């Protein structure tokens, strides 16, 4: 019996499996309270069924469209900026022949990734401070009035997206650099022979070379459309920008854990709604990618 012969493997798998069941599958079972009126006294399985009541309430609520719009525009903005820029940087680094300089650029651009989200937002606060922030000092040097970035809700999305670019551009380009180094050098040699300029080689050799990787990253990004950088947004929120900064995840957190009368079932329903749409979204974009003959996840 192969199963018995390999019993020691199952012993090794025991703890990880126990973890995944307890901390991932049990909450999935617990998510049924989205369809119930959860009462702590009755517990998860004994609470009364209410069907889709909480989902209806969310979709009909005044907040629904605002939150959906914020979540989607923030994600799209993030994707529109955060997806192409690392590719540009990788292509650019790839054409820098000066080794020491190349190393420096990589070293410096990777570093912000390791900064914690709290410190990151702290840095953004300090940089954009209306009185002492470096950015405002520069704006004033150039002869403009200082901008109060935190009192204007319109700035929120840009601050979120561009500070994300600052933090992640280096780390995101690693994968493209790897793909670029995997391109067959004979293609470039043939290009040089035929008199192609560097720019032409970049367009016709390098970009097609990283396209498969890029499409996987894009698929993943689209599948994550409803998952915004929750921890960071929560830190950046204030009463003045809440109009543009409230997204699904922060709303769930507030309804479920912060509110004076926490509504576990309602919050779970909103979270469940999000997870479900995310799953469908990921499967759909993957299917589309497959149809187009590009790389896909499975």
């Amino acid at each position, binding site marked *: 019996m192969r199963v018995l012969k390999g019993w020691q493997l199952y012993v090794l798998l025991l703890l990880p499996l126990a973890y*995944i069941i307890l*901390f991932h599958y049990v909450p999935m079972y617990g998510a049924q*309270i989205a369809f119930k009126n959860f009462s702590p006294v009755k517990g998860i399985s004994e609470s009364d069924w209410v069907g889709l009541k909480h989902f209806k309430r969310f979709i009909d609520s005044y907040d629904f469209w605002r939150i959906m719009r914020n979540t989607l525009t923030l994600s799209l903005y993030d994707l529109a900026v955060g997806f192409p820029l690392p590719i540009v940087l990788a292509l650019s680094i790839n054409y820098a022949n000066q080794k020491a300089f190349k190393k420096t650029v990589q070293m410096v651009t990777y570093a912000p990734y390791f900064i914690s989200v709290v*410190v990151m937002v*702290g840095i953004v606060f300090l940089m954009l401070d209306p009185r002492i922030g470096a950015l405002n000092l520069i704006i004033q040097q150039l002869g403009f009035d200082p901008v109060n970035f935190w009192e204007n809700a319109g700035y929120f999305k840009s601050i979120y997206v561009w500070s994300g670019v600052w933090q992640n551009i280096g780390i995101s380009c*690693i*994968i493209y650099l790897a793909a670029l180094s995997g391109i067959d050098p004979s293609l470039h040699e043939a290009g040089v022979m035929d008199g192609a300029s560097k720019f032409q080689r970049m367009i016709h050799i390098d970009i097609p070379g990283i396209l498969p990787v890029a499409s996987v990253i894009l698929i993943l990004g689209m599948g994550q459309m409803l998952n915004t950088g929750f921890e960071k947004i929560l830190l950046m929120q204030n009463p003045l920008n809440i109009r543009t900064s409230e997204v699904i995840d922060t709303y769930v957190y507030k309804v479920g*854990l912060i509110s004076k009368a926490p509504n576990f079932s309602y919050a779970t329903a909103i979270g469940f709604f999000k997870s479900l749409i995310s799953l469908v979204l990921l499967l759909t974009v993957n299917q589309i990618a497959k149809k187009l003959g590009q790389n896909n996840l499975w």
Partner: protein
Amino acid sequence: MYNPSIKESRGDRAFTFVNYTFLVLVLIMVAYPLLYIVSASFSNPGKVAAGEIWLFPKGFNVAGYKAVFDYSRFWTGFTNSLFYTSAGTMLNVTLTVMAGYVLSRRDLVGRNLFMLLFMFTMLFSGGLIPTYLLVQDLGLINTRWAMILPTALSVWNLIIARTFFQVSIPQELLEAAQIDGCNDFKFVWRIVLPLSAPIIAVLCLFYAVGHWNTYFNALIYLRNKELFPLQIILREILILNSVDTAMTNGSEAQAKQALSQLLKFSLVIIASLPILVIYPFVQKHFVKGVMIGSLKG
């Protein structure tokens, strides 16, 4: 790129020029905020508050650092974070290596089923509230366990580890060991572990950075101030702006205000230091980890 002896065409030279200009600009834009924070942290509190610092420190001063180091809650948070990071990472790496190796074994009956079980959690989750309720039911709220157990394993890292084992532990090694009468426990302990130093380094790095930098679980699971990790203390000071009066004790109101501004800069530096110090040494491993992760499993 190759054969630099061939003279570049005018177009190529222009391309190279534009390219380097772009990279220099990127370099400046990424490095500038870091330089600004470092400079301000070493400056005179009055000059910082007056908005005079934009590149170089003025009126060299370590008052901000002193205020941070004198603050007892900073040290509580720091030691707590050290504990959560080391204990958490140890558990993480142990579980990840065990599961990663087992799932890399082609002769494991039910391998695909197990893999599916792990992978599905990346696609769908019960959500914030059911997880919170579970942690509550387990009685972990307000205990150190809440910082360690709910994040005991990351499936993403598990896949990285599994890919590593698949690629770098040859099937022949296992067969040879089995013929010599070596069982699976022994094989893992004597052969696999000694060969997996690179992946263990990568996993330690990923997990440790994650533990050190996260604040959200502490925010929802912990109430007792004695258990707070550093990131929560940072959040209070940097984000919520609630500087404890104990930190700026014994100075005039205005000086107090200036100092509480200055110590934010120092705090940013000190909090990032542990990771930035080891960063140059682990950068290589980190890049490797990202690349293993990008291989299709």
